[in-house]
C-alpha cells in the first residue's frame, strides 16, 4: 500500500522569504506563495504531526510535534522527500521550541514547564525549570530577547500565564485573569506586552514590566488557538475555533495604557478551528492553516494596497469639490459603475459622473423628467447608462471609452405602458442590448426593447403576455430567448421570435421569493445550464433543453440539476470566476459579502447600511466596485482581485468525515474530463456533503460543491449506481441525490427525493441503509435501520420518483448500526447488526412482492402489493462481537448460495461469518473466523475486495490493515499507519475482473488520505 495524497489538519504555518512552510501531518509542505506552487512535501516524522516550525536566520529549521523534534537544513526540506532519520524523541510532549540568540542551541519547552537546552545535535546541555511549578501546559513559547534574556511563557490549564526567566529560573509573573486553560501566549518584540488567549474566548493584553492587565478583547465566538504581534507591535492577529482570523489594533493612549480594538474579521476556514497563523510584515500578507487542511493567504492591506479602495462622499463634499449646488433634501437615487467611473442620478434629476482617474465629480445634465422614482441601469461593455422613471420614460447615454464625453444620447417615452415600476437591461448580441419595462397594471403587456449598442435607437419592440403574479427582478438573454426572474421564485422564458408564443414558466424553483440573478453557465448539445439565485439564500442550476419534433413547435423542458442554500443571509447574485469557481454575493444583516462558494471562504466584506439599502455591485477590470449609500454618504468600495493567491491548499472538511463513496463507473458517462480518476462524495460530522473528484495517479482532489441540505451530522453516504447517491443522518434525514456529470466544466448534484419521516418532529437517527435493484430497471428496494431498533423496507419507483413503505418492524429496543440486503438463491435476506454485537437475519422473501433473478441476484417484480407487511421474526442470530459492530461488508460466492460477511467491532475484533442456506432453504449464520485483537481500537470500516479473497480495515488506532482470506480464515498481510485521526470511513475502487490491477483506497476521518494498493 502506498500513500498518494493526504488532506487534513495543518497545525502550523510560517513564511520564509517567498516560501510558505506548513506542518501538514508528519510532513512539511513548502510552497512558493507568489506563484502558488507546491515545491516539496518532506516527511519529517514517522507518525507524529508537525505542531510547530521555527526558522533561523541562517536557514536552519527547527520543527517539533508531540514528543518529536528535528533540526534540518532548509535546502534539504526544499528537495528531499524524507528526513525521518533526523527525528529525535523527547520523553515528554514538546509544547514550544526555538533557537537561542546566536542560533547555536535550541530550547525545548515541555508540557511540564521544563526547558531542555540542547545543542544542534540534540545533545542535552542543561535542564531548566521553575521550582514548585509543574502544572501541565496546553501552550507555551520561549521568547529570546538577547543572549542573556530569554523568557519562558507558559499557559497553564488553570487560567494562569506563568512567565519565567530561563537562566535564573525565577518567576517574573503569574498573570491571573483568564478563566480556563490558556491556549496561547506571545510577547511583543519590543518587550512591552504579553498577549494571551484562553478557553474564556477573550484575548488579554498585559504589561510585561508590571504584569498589569491592560485590556480584554472580546470578539471571537469560540476558543482562540493562536495569536501574534505584528506591524511593529501595534497590532495582534488571532485565529480561533470559530474559523475566523481577526486583527486587533493596540491603541496606546496618553496615560500609557493600551486598548485592544477589533479592526478586521476574516471568515476563511471551514468548521472548525484555525490552528496556525503567520504574517509577512514587509508585504502585510497573513497565512492561516486550519483543521480543514486549508492554507489561506489574507491580504491585510486589502483596503489600502491600491490607495483608492475606500472613498465616500456626502453631497456637501461634492459641492465643495466641484461646485455643484444641490437642493435641500436632495439625495443620490441611483448609480452604476463603469470602467471609467460612476454615473449617478439625484432626486432632483441631476446626472453626475465620477471619474475613476481624477476622482472628481462632474454634473453632466439635469433632466427633471427623471425626478420621480428613477431606476438606474447600465451596459458596462459599451459604457451605456440607462435611466428610467415610473412614467415609462427612458434616457440612454453612451460615453466615450475614457468616459470624458457623451457620444450618444436618446430619450423616449413608451406609450404601451400606463406606468412603469421596474426596468431591467441585459446584453443580447454584438449589435444590440435588451431593455424590459414592467408595469404594475395587469392589463399592460411586458415590454422588451431591442436597442442598438451603436446609436441607441430602438431596433424592435416585443409585447409579451404576463403570467399571474409576475414581478420581474432580473433578466438575461440566451440566443433568441429572454429569461426573466420574478418573485415567487419563478423564471419566465419568452421567445423573441414570436411575441404571441406562450411563455415557458418555471415556478417555485426554491422555497425563497425574489429571484435575484440568472446567469448562463454552459451548454451541451441542445441543452444549456443556468444558475438562478434567490434572495433567501438558495441557488439552483437549471438545465433547459430544446426539443424539435417535426411539425410541432419547439418545446422547452426544464430540469433542476443542482440546488443548495447559502449558510446564512441574503443572496443577491452569483457568477463563475476565471478559475471556474462559483462566487456568490449578498448581505448578512448589514454586512455585504463576496464569497467563494466552491471552496467556502469569504473574499471580501463591507459593513453597509440597513435593510432598505441602495447599493450596486459592478465588475471592473481587476475586481469589483461596490457602491452604497450609508448615513447619507455615497460609498465607493473597490474590491480588487487579491494580489496573492487566495489559497495554497483548499483543504477538505474541517470535521470528521463519517463516510466516503466513490461514484462507480464515472468514465462511462462523461466526455473525458473526469477520466483520470473518479467523482466521489464525503459525508461529514460538519453536516455537509462534498462532491469532489480525485486523480487516480496523483491523488489530487478537486472540490466542486459543498451540499448543506442535512441539518445534522452525517452517518452515511453511498452511490447506489453511477447516477444516484443516498445520504442519511440524524433527525431521520435520508436524501436520494441525482448526479449529472455530462457537462464539461463540473458535475452537478441535486436532491431527487426525500424519505418520508415517521413523525413531524423526527428525532431518530437513520444509522444505515442498503439498496437492492430490481433487475434491469431504476427501481429498487431500500432497507433503513434506526436508532430505536426500527427496520423499514421501502420500494422506490424511478419513473414515479416515490418511496413506498412496504415493510416495517422493530428488532428490540436497541439501536441498529448496520443493514445489508443479501439475496441467496431465491431468498431475500435482511441482515442487521444491533449494538450488542449480534448479526440478525430476517428472511423477507415471502413478505415482499419480489422474486430473485437467480443469475444476477437482482430482484424481479411480481404484483405490487399496496399493504405494508410486518417484519417477520428473525431466522438466524449469532453474537459475533462483544459490543457494537461498526462495519459490515459482504460478498456472495458464484453459486449464489453462500455469503461471507466481514464485521469490524468496537471490541477491536474482526469477524468473518458465513451466511448459508441449509437443506430446508433457511438462512443460517456460522462463524468462520474471529480475530479478537485485530486492532488496538475500534475497527470503524472494513471492505472485502478481490471477490472476498482480501479485506481492508481501518480503525481508530490509525492503522490500515490488509488481510488475506484463505479457506475462511483471516491473516494479516500488511499494515500501514495513517495520519488521519478518528479514522472512520473507507471506500475502495477496484476492478474485480482484474484482481491484480491497482486499487485506490480513500480513507476518511479528520482528513482524507488516498492510497494505492
Amino acid at each position, binding site marked *: 500500500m502506498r500513500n498518494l495524497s493526504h488532506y487534513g489538519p495543518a497545525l502550523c504555518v510560517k513564511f520564509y522569504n517567498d516560501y510558505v512552510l506548513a506542518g501538514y501531518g508528519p510532513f512539511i509542505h513548502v510552497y512558493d506563495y507568489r506563484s502558488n506552487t507546491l515545491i516539496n512535501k518532506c516527511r519529517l516524522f514517522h507518525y507524529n504531526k508537525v505542531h510547530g516550525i521555527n526558522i533561523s536566520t541562517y536557514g536552519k529549521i527547527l520543527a517539533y510535534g508531540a514528543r518529536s523534534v528535528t533540526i534540518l537544513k532548509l535546502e534539504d526540506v526544499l528537495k528531499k522527500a524524507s528526513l525521518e532519520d533526523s527525528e*529525535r524523541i523527547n520523553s515528554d*510532549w514538546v509544547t514550544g521550541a526555538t533557537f537561542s540568540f546566536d542560533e547555536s542551541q535550541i530550547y525545548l519547552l515541555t508540557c511540564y514547564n521544563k526547558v531542555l537546552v540542547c545543542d544542534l*545535535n*540534540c545533545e542535552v546541555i542543561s535542564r531548566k525549570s521553575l521550582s514548585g511549578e509543574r502544572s501541565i501546559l496546553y501552550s507555551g513559547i520561549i521568547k529570546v530577547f538577547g543572549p542573556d534574556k530569554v523568557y519562558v511563557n507558559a499557559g497553564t490549564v488553570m487560567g494562569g500565564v506563568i512567565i519565567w526567566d530561563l537562566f535564573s529560573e525565577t518567576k517574573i509573573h503569574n498573570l491571573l485573569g483568564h478563566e480556563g486553560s490558556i491556549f496561547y501566549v506571545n510577547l511583543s518584540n519590543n518587550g512591552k506586552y504579553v498577549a494571551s488567549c484562553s478557553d474564556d474566548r477573550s484575548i488579554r493584553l498585559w504589561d510585561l514590566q508590571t504584569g498589569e492587565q491592560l485590556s480584554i478583547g472580546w470578539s471571537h465566538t469560540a476558543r482562540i488557538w493562536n495569536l501574534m504581534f505584528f506591524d511593529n507591535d501595534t497590532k495582534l492577529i488571532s485565529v480561533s475555533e470559530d474559523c475566523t482570523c481577526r486583527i486587533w489594533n493596540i491603541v496606546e493612549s496618553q496615560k500609557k495604557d493600551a486598548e485592544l480594538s477589533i479592526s478586521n474579521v476574516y471568515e476563511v476556514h471551514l468548521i472548525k478551528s484555525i490552528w496556525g497563523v503567520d504574517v509577512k510584515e514587509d508585504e502585510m500578507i497573513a497565512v492561516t492553516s486550519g483543521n480543514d487542511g486549508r492554507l489561506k493567504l489574507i491580504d491585510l492591506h486589502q483596503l489600502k494596497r491600491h490607495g483608492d479602495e475606500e472613498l465616500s462622499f456626502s453631497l456637501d463634499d461634492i459641492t465643495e469639490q466641484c461646485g455643484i449646488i444641490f437642493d435641500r433634501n436632495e439625495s443620490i437615487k441611483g448609480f452604476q459603475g463603469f470602467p471609467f467611473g460612476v454615473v449617478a442620478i439625484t432626486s432632483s434629476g441631476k446626472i453626475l459622473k465620477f471619474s475613476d482617474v481624477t476622482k472628481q465629480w462632474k454634473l453632466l445634465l439635469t433632466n427633471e423628467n427623471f425626478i420621480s422614482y428613477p431606476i438606474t441601469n447600465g451596459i458596462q461593455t459599451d459604457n451605456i447608462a440607462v435611466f428610467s422613471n415610473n412614467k415609462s420614460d427612458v434616457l440612454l447615454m453612451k460615453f466615450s471609452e475614457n468616459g470624458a464625453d457623451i457620444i450618444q444620447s436618446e430619450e423616449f417615452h413608451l406609450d404601451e405602458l400606463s406606468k412603469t415600476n421596474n426596468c431591467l437591461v441585459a446584453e443580447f448580441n454584438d449589435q444590440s442590448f435588451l431593455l424590459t419595462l414592467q408595469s404594475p397594471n395587469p392589463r399592460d403587456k411586458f415590454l422588451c426593447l431591442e436597442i442598438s449598442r451603436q446609436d441607441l435607437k430602438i431596433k424592435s419592440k416585443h409585447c409579451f403576455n404576463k403570467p399571474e403574479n409576475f414581478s420581474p427582478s432580473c433578466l438575461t438573454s440566451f440566443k433568441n430567448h429572454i429569461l426573466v426572474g420574478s418573485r415567487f421564485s419563478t423564471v419566465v422564458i419568452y421567445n423573441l421570435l414570436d411575441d404571441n408564443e406562450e411563455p415557458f414558466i418555471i415556478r417555485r424553483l426554491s422555497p425563497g421569493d425574489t429571484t435575484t440573478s440568472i446567469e448562463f453557465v454552459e451548454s451541451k448539445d441542445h441543452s444549456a445550464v443556468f444558475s438562478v439565485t434567490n434572495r433567501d439564500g438558495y441557488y439552483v442550476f437549471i438545465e433547459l433543453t430544446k426539443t424539435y419534433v417535426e411539425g410541432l413547435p419547439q418545446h422547452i423542458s426544464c430540469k433542476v440539476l443542482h440546488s443548495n442554500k447559502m449558510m446564512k443571509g441574503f443572496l443577491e447574485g452569483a457568477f463563475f470566476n476565471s478559475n471556474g469557481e462559483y462566487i456568490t454575493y449578498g448581505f448578512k444583516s448589514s454586512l455585504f459579502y463576496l464569497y467563494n462558494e466552491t471552496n467556502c471562504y469569504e473574499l471580501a466584506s463591507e459593513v453597509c447600511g440597513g435593510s432598505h439599502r441602495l447599493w450596486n455591485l459592478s465588475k471592473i477590470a481587476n475586481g469589483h466596485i461596490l457602491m452604497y449609500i450609508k448615513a447619507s454618504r455615497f460609498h465607493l468600495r473597490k474590491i480588487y482581485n487579491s494580489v496573492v493567491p487566495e489559497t495554497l491548499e483548499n483543504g477538505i472538511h474541517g470535521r470528521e468525515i463519517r463516510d466516503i463513496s466513490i461514484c462507480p463507473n464515472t468514465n462511462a458517462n462523461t466526455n473525458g474530463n473526469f477520466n483520470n480518476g473518479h467523482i466521489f462524495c464525503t459525508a461529514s460530522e460538519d453536516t455537509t456533503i462534498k462532491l469532489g473528484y480525485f486523480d487516480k495517479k496523483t491523488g489530487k482532489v478537486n472540490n466542486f460543491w459543498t451540499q448543506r441540505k442535512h441539518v445534522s451530522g452525517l452517518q452515511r453516504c453511498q452511490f447506489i449506481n453511477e447516477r444516484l447517491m443516498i445520504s442519511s443522518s440524524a433527525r431521520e434525514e435520508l436524501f436520494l441525490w441525482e448526479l449529472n456529470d455530462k457537462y464539461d466544466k463540473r458535475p452537478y448534484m441535486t436532491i431527487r427525493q426525500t424519505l418520508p419521516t415517521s413523525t413531524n418532529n423526527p428525532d431518530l*437517527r437513520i444509522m444505515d441503509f442498503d439498496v437492492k435493484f430490481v433487475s434491469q430497471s431504476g427501481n429498487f428496494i431500500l432497507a433503513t435501520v434506526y436508532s*430505536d431498533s426500527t427496520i423499514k423496507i421501502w420500494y422506490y419507483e424511478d419513473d414515479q420518483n416515490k418511496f413506498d413503505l412496504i415493510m416495517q418492524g422493530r428488532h428490540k429496543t436497541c439501536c441498529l448500526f448496520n443493514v445489508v440486503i443479501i439475496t441467496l438463491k431465491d431468498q431475500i435476506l435482511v441482515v442487521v447488526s444491533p449494538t450488542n454485537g449480534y448479526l440478525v437475519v430476517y428472511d423477507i422473501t415471502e413478505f415482499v412482492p419480489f422474486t430473485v433473478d437467480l443469475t444476477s441476484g437482482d430482484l424481479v417484480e411480481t404484483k405490487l402489493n399496496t399493504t405494508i407487511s410486518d417484519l417477520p421474526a428473525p431466522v438466524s442470530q449469532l453474537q459475533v462481537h462483544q459490543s*457494537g459492530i461498526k462495519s459490515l461488508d459482504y460478498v456472495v460466492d458464484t453459486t449464489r448460495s453462500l455469503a461471507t460477511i466481514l464485521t469490524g467491532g468496537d471490541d477491536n475484533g474482526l469477524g468473518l461469518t458465513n451466511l448459508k442456506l441449509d437443506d430446508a432453504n433457511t438462512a443460517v449464520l456460522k462463524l468462520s473466523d474471529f480475530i479478537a485483537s485485530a486492532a488496538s*481500537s*475500534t475497527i470503524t470500516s472494513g471492505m472485502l475486495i478481490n471477490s472476498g479473497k482480501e479485506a481492508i480495515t481501518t480503525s481508530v488506532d490509525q492503522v490500515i490493515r490488509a488481510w488475506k482470506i484463505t479457506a475462511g480464515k483471516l491473516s494479516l498481510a500488511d499494515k500501514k499507519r495513517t495520519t488521519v485521526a*478518528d479514522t472512520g470511513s473507507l471506500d475502495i475502487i477496484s476492478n474485480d475482473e482484474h484482481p491484480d490491477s491497482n486499487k485506490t483506497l480513500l480513507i476518511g476521518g479528520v482528513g482524507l488520505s488516498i492510497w494505492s494498493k
Partner: protein
Amino acid sequence: MGKSSKDKRDLYYRKAKEQGYRARSAFKLLQLNEQFHFLDDPNLKRVVDLCAAPGSWSQVLSRKLFDESSNSNSEDRKIVAVDLQPMSPIPHVTTLQADITHPKTLARILNLFGNEKADFVCSDGAPDVTGLHDLDEYIQQQLIMSALQLTACILKKGGVFVAKIFRGRDIDMLYSQLGYLFDRIVCAKPRSSRGTSLEAFIVCLGYNPPSNWTPKLDINTSVDEFFQGCFLNKLCISDKLSPWDEEERNIAKFMACGSLESFDSDATYHDIPSSIVNSPSSLDPVQSPTNPPYKKALELKRSGKLTRSV
C-alpha cells in the same frame, strides 16, 4: 436539545436523575462492577476516587460500601474523593479539594487511612478536548499517569485501579506500560458508555510493581522521572534525545460490561421501560451545570455584543 428530548435519547441520563446520581457515568462504574465485582469484596476497606467531581462515582462507592453492604464492620471502611474543583458533600465520603500530583495530597489521604494502603483507586477524569487528537490523547494519558503516580504510592499489592481512557492512536503504548505495574489489564466498555464514543475504561487488576522500584512523589519530578526504572520498555532520560524507535505496544483484552438486557446508550426509546416508569416525567438534573470558562462570552453573545461590526 430540550430537557425532554435528551430524556428520550438517553435512558441512563433519566435513570441517573431518578436514582439521585449526579451524572449518568455512575452506571459505567456499576456495570464495570457487574463484570469484575471489585466493589463486592467484603474485605474492601479503603477506596480513593480521583478527579471525582461532580461525584457520581463517589456516590456509587458510598452506596456500594455502606448502604448496600451487608458487611457489619463497615465503620472501618473509608472513601476519599479528590478533585481540584469543589464538590458537594456525599455521605460516607471525605472530599479533598486538592491536586492529585502533589505529595501533600498523598500525605492527607494516607493520614485519613491511618497510614494503611488503599484497596481500590479509580478515576473518571477527562480533560477538555481541543480537537487536536494527538494532544487530547496525550493529555488524557498524562492525567491517567498522574493518577497512577498517586496510585503507585497508595495502592496495596494486589489492589485494583480503574480509569477512563480514550482508545486512540497510542492506547496500546499505555496498555504496555500498565503491564509493568499490574498482573492483568482489561479494556472494558460498559453498555452505558456510547458505542459511538471512543471512551472505554482500563481495569488494572493485581497491583504488582517491579520489586526494585520505589515510587516517590515529588512536585519537581516529571511523570517520566517518577516511573524511571518501572517501565522497562521506556526510554531512559539521558543526555541525548534518542532517535525514533517503534515503542512497545500491547493490545489489552476487550470486555463489554453490563448485561445485554441493560439499556442501550445509543438507542432512542419511545416507551419508557417499566423499570423506571414510576417517576415524574421530567426531573431536574441533580447537579446543575458548573460555570463554564466562557460564561462571560456567552452573555456578551446573547446581548449582541459579539455581532460582527467590521
